[in-house]
């Protein structure tokens, strides 16, 4: 009993030191708490599923941020992993009848393997050429999936439909449906939390330092004895892993289908837009960006604007375009992203409080004692 008590006390004090005393983290903690209690506050299921969508997109965008914002390898074809995730888990669970908790890890493995195989030749080219090559892959797969002879396997244009849900027990009545939406929301929130913490830890580890060095100066990291290809491939694979996971979640949650549209170009650009909105290279930025995107896309442009003004029919198809326009306007004002702007202000406040007491937040542990 006393042991448990001492552990609890230690956990509490480390929580205070690491979260309460760092304003940006405290803000993040408050936001997370808000997200936790939202369903209990009686939020409508439509908005809840909107936030579920935001969670999935956030996982997707965070994985993109690790690759592009932290390693500098531009990928404009992340939809490839998203789609492969959806199709792999769909194929395994629908056609072979494997339970969902097995198919998702298997699909993630498939995504990892794809990332590894594609990254091996692709990562030898740089900059815009890499972006173009990665962009080509989902488009190729998109055509292959729709190829008529493969209809029995992948269902052609229609895709694989009727995937099992995460909570098969919760169906039938309205009450059960509402409970399912809530359960799915909590599930995605948990997965988002775990994934973003893992990616944040990777990005700030010693390996993450090497990723950053490749972003800054590839030649100089070679001159430091770093096998650049190996680290790029590592980053690409990790990024592919989480993007595939996001695709799996998406396929099982929304419409419970794996459609060819998961390979579409639009989907490759969503993480780009979302990450730039939140702040590239921050890891937490894309999460904020994803929430903004989901709310603007699914609430403002879908519900609020049609309610207020008479919109033409093409409006529904121009939503992403309008969102990108909004992002561009925001980027003029806050070029480093919305989330980073906020944390910068918070850190300024903190620095005013204790000016030379601390170094940059991530590097706190390397801090040396001040000399008298």
């Amino acid at each position, binding site marked *: 009993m006393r042991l448990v008590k001492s552990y609890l006390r230690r956990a509490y004090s480390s929580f205070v030191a690491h979260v309460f005393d760092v304003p940006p983290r405290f803000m993040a903690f408050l936001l997370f708490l808000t997200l936790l209690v939202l369903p209990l506050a009686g939020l409508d299921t439509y908005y809840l599923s909107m936030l579920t969508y935001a969670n999935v997109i956030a996982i997707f965008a965070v994985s993109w941020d690790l690759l592009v914002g932290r390693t500098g390898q531009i990928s404009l074809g992340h939809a490839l992993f998203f789609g492969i995730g959806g199709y792999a888990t769909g194929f395994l669970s629908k056609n072979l009848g494997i339970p969902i908790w097995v198919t998702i890890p298997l699909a993630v493995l498939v995504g990892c393997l794809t990332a590894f195989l594609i990254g091996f030749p692709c990562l030898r080219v740089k900059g815009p050429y890499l972006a173009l090559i990665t962009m080509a892959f989902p488009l190729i797969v998109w055509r292959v999936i729709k190829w008529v002879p493969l209809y029995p396997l992948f269902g052609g244009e229609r895709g694989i439909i009727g995937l099992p849900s995460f909570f098969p027990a919760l169906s039938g009545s309205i009450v059960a449906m509402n409970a399912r939406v809530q359960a799915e929301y909590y599930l995605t929130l948990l997965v988002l939390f775990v994934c973003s913490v893992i990616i944040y830890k990777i990005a700030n580890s010693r390996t993450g330092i090497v990723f*950053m060095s490749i972003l*800054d100066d590839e030649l*100089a*990291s070679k001159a430091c*004895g770093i096998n650049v290809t190996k680290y790029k491939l590592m980053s690409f694979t990790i990024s592919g892993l989480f993007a595939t996971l996001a695709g799996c979640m998406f396929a099982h949650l929304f419409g419970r289908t794996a459609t060819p549209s998961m390979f579409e170009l639009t989907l490759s650009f969503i993480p780009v837009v979302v990450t730039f909105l939140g702040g590239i290279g921050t890891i937490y930025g894309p999460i904020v960006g994803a929430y903004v995107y989901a709310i603007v896309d699914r609430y403002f442009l879908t519900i609020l604007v049609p309610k207020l003004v008479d919109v033409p029919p093409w409006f529904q198809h121009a939503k992403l375009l309008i969102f990108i326009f909004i992002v561009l306007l925001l980027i003029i004002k806050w070029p480093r992203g919305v989330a980073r702007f906020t944390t910068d202000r918070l850190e300024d406040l903190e620095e005013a409080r204790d000016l030379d007491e601390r170094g*940059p937040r991530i590097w706190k*542990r*390397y801090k040396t004692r001040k000399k008298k």
Partner: protein
Amino acid sequence: MHLLEVENLTKRFGGLTALKNVDFHIDEGEMVGIIGPNGAGKTTLFNLISGLLKPDSGAVKLRGENITGLAPHKIVNKGIARTFQIVRPFRHLPVIANVMVALKSPRGARKIEWLKTMERKAADMLEDVGLSELMLEPAENVGHGDLKRLEMAKALATEPDLLMLDEPFGGLNPLETDFLIKSIMRMHLDEPSRGIVIVEHKLYALMQIVERVIVLHQGEKIAEGTPEEIAKNKKVIEVYMGKGM
């Protein structure tokens, strides 16, 4: 056996022959300077040895092992580290993390003593070059003189057998130059078996510290000898001052 042997190294860029049959060797614990007017091929020579460029003919041997045309990171892990003429820090990373990148390489990681963390080792390396004050500063906020020293720390982090410094004194004021000379000398005494090659324009600084000088001119080696010999060499004076003096 020589530490580094360069045999008949030739490199052409299109019609221009940047290096023509350059031949020299460096022994363990030797400090050698390479001088020459602009365009003499000094940096090309460095790039060839460190693997950034592939020679058209000739060979580079480290302790008798042929390392010609290997990938740059493999050459670093074999024990040849270099700095760049124009500093290349990792701008978004703190100074200490710049050194940790080099410690993350296979050779750098191997050279970390037992029970010592990478961070501790990086901090020690920075203390050796006198940068411990700026340890947590992002490299983009650090001045040019300090970045030159950071380059040195990065190169030293892999504990190379042969250290190649490309214009280490370029753009430094006399005070900083003196400091760097002192730290190079100290490093030389600490690790007596390490070979050091310095390419430099500032002959005054270079001649103080090196034991042997190699003179390049238009891609060819025109002289080699102790600093005193080189200072008297007719051909070298001709190249630097012009004919008819």
